[in-house]
């Protein structure tokens, strides 16, 4: 229940934040990496650092993460095929051999089919996700955003203390 409430808070707070649609969309695009790719991997530490350091919507990042986790699970077989195809491609074998035998690189798990396939998948989807999110946020704010802001449900959700945590990372 708390997770659903938090997701709603994040969603609403992000949509009504002072951040521009571009900042929210960039956050969603970065956060989608956390959802689309297996979480416990080095590249996601980099994504997290970018979410924190770049002036993008952190809430958008969390929203992207939450939204894309189920999609990631659904797409795992596709990611596996993409990764396997790349790892078994004769033309790329020299590259993989070099990476596999380079210090620290193997810790990225690049040689796992799902990790590689999902990272490639995310890279391919990042721009479409960004543009779709930017368009969606702009449309939302231009149409029903103000009415939602004045609704009692919004007031009730935003009154929760969890909203304060979000405010630490809201875009400026």
């Amino acid at each position, binding site marked *: 229940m708390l997770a659903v409430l938090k997701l709603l808070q994040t969603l609403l707070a992000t949509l009504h934040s002072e951040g521009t649609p571009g900042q929210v969309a960039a956050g969603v695009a970065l956060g989608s990496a956390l959802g689309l790719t297996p979480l416990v991997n080095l590249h996601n530490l980099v994504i997290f650092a970018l979410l924190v*350091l*770049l002036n993008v919507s952190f809430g958008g990042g969390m929203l992207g993460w939450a939204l894309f986790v189920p999609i990631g699970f659904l797409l795992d077989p596709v*990611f596996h095929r993409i990764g*396997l195809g790349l*790892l078994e491609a004769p033309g790329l074998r020299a590259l993989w051999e070099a990476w596999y035998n380079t*210090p*620290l690189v193997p810790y990225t798990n690049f*040689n*796992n089919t799902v990790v590689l396939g999902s990272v490639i998948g995310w890279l391919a989807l990042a721009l479409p996700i960004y543009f779709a999110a930017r368009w969606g946020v702009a449309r939302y704010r231009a149409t029903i955003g103000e009415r939602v802001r004045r609704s009692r449900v919004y007031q009730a959700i935003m009154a929760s203390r969890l909203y304060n945590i979000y405010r630490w990372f809201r875009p400026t």
Partner: protein
Amino acid sequence: MAVRIFRWKAIGVLVLVLAALGVLLLLFAEPIAREATEDAGSDLLGTEVDVARLDIHPRDVAVDLAGVALADPFAPERNLVEAARIGVDLDPYALAERKFVVRQLSIGGVAFGTRRERPARPPRRNGLAVQLVGAVRTWADQLDVPILSLTPIDTIRQLALDPTRLGTVQAATALVAQADSTRRAVEQGVQGLDLERTVDSARALVERLKAADPKTLGIQGTRDAIASVRRTLDEVQQARERVGALERQVRGGVDALGTGVERLDEARRRDYAFARSLLQLPSFDAPRIGKAFFGPVSIARFQQAMYWVQLARRYMPPGLLPRASTGPDRLRMAGATVRFPKERTYPKFLLEAGTVDFSIRGDGPLGGRYTAWARGVTSAPALYGRPTVIAASRRAEGAALRAVDASAVLDHLRRPPRDSITAVLDGLGLPTIDLPGLPVRVEPGKGRSRLMFVLSGDDLSARWSIASDQVRWAIDTAGRPLNGMERLVWRVISGLRDLSVTAELTGTVASPRLSVASNLDDAVASRLQAVVGEEVARAEQLARATVDSVVADKAAVARRRAEDVAAQARERIAEARQRLDEAQRQLEEELRRLTRGAGDLIPIPRVTPPW
């Protein structure tokens, strides 16, 4: 207002998060690594691996493990090996590439075959090793071990057989159907030859030409007549070719019928054996007795060796091609993790050379200090360039256990791989063996045990033997009293003080052959033969007669039908040939008569029979 790209203030938060992660890692690295070692070890070896404690020494790039136990994959209630301490020094450069190159390995407090406090859990994942355990069990199950039946045979008076379970009946039914089908095919084939038209046409032409004289026909008339004869001869020739094709087809059908008749005989032999098995007659063949007594215990030894060799082949494959294995266990799909071995780089795992001094605790015969060494234990033998060698030995003159020598050479440098294991234990207290089918067990006492197991490609050559001169026999009649034959066997074997068993495994992995010989075989076989041989012969006669009474008529009918059809088919073909020969002969005669009259103006066709 321009939007800033970086949120510099967040660096502090990021550093804090990273620091918190670092602290968590320091606090929980060892428990996590211990659990990961247990899970990975269990998955890799297909049996439970327990680690009581794991200490990481980051400065020395070393790991100490305590209380390590490896359960027996085929006997979950005991440990294959236990080690009180294992120290591992790793190569830091290889570790940076996520590879485990062991610079030094020390093992202490080793014990073999200890009883577990609780049975080993089956591994969580149905990984390669678990599948291999199943595959090796299936492999072992195909080894034929006869059951020594010591049912009193004087109680056998009759034998009832269900005809539907007899192969001869099925084979006879199939043969009759096949014969009918062949007969129909021959009939249709003969009709399809359309011989009547060809022969009638030839006969009519011959009749017509007989009445004609070349002198009255003139040159043109004679030429036309000869052309007609030629055409008809061509038709005869074509018909002859059709007959040839039919003959080949008929020959195939007749051959199949012959095979069916042979199958009938084979099926009857199998039915005799089946009927005999229903009577549960004891076998007096010495090799069968040895196999029945000591087959299971021999198979258990070979099964262990086969499992570890096959496991080594899976984890130490020859060549340098990329290798995929199942990815890590996680909520998301595991996928496959591909390794990319490359020349002049570290393999994923390597124990380059290790000398291990270990001692076996306790005052038992195995107790004492041992020396073991290993070289080139690696996940990529082609990178290491030499076969893996593992050896352990102990010498203790005068001690209860005089010598232990065990070694394994795994040559996976190229295909086909060749693996060999040899072990000699002299002065060892040999384990008690229960004799299958009898409430009797043999306690061999101290003796000598040898194991030699070679798997070259898929070719097997293995030998396991035990020998002892301090044998004791024990009988447990609490469950049921012995019958007469069992008492006889007991009298024979309980008088023996020596035991010598040799089991040999040959053939290929797909089709292994097991033979077992022991000094009990001849003794037991000759005594049984002398006492109940006549009864067994009578029972076998009964089994054969019962089978014959059920199948004789059906088999005879089927055989007769097959022979009749084969004869008819040959006859029809011969008849067709004869008719064509006759037509051809008459046509050629007319042709000669016509050409004699026409002189050299018209060339005479040469007809060469195809046979």
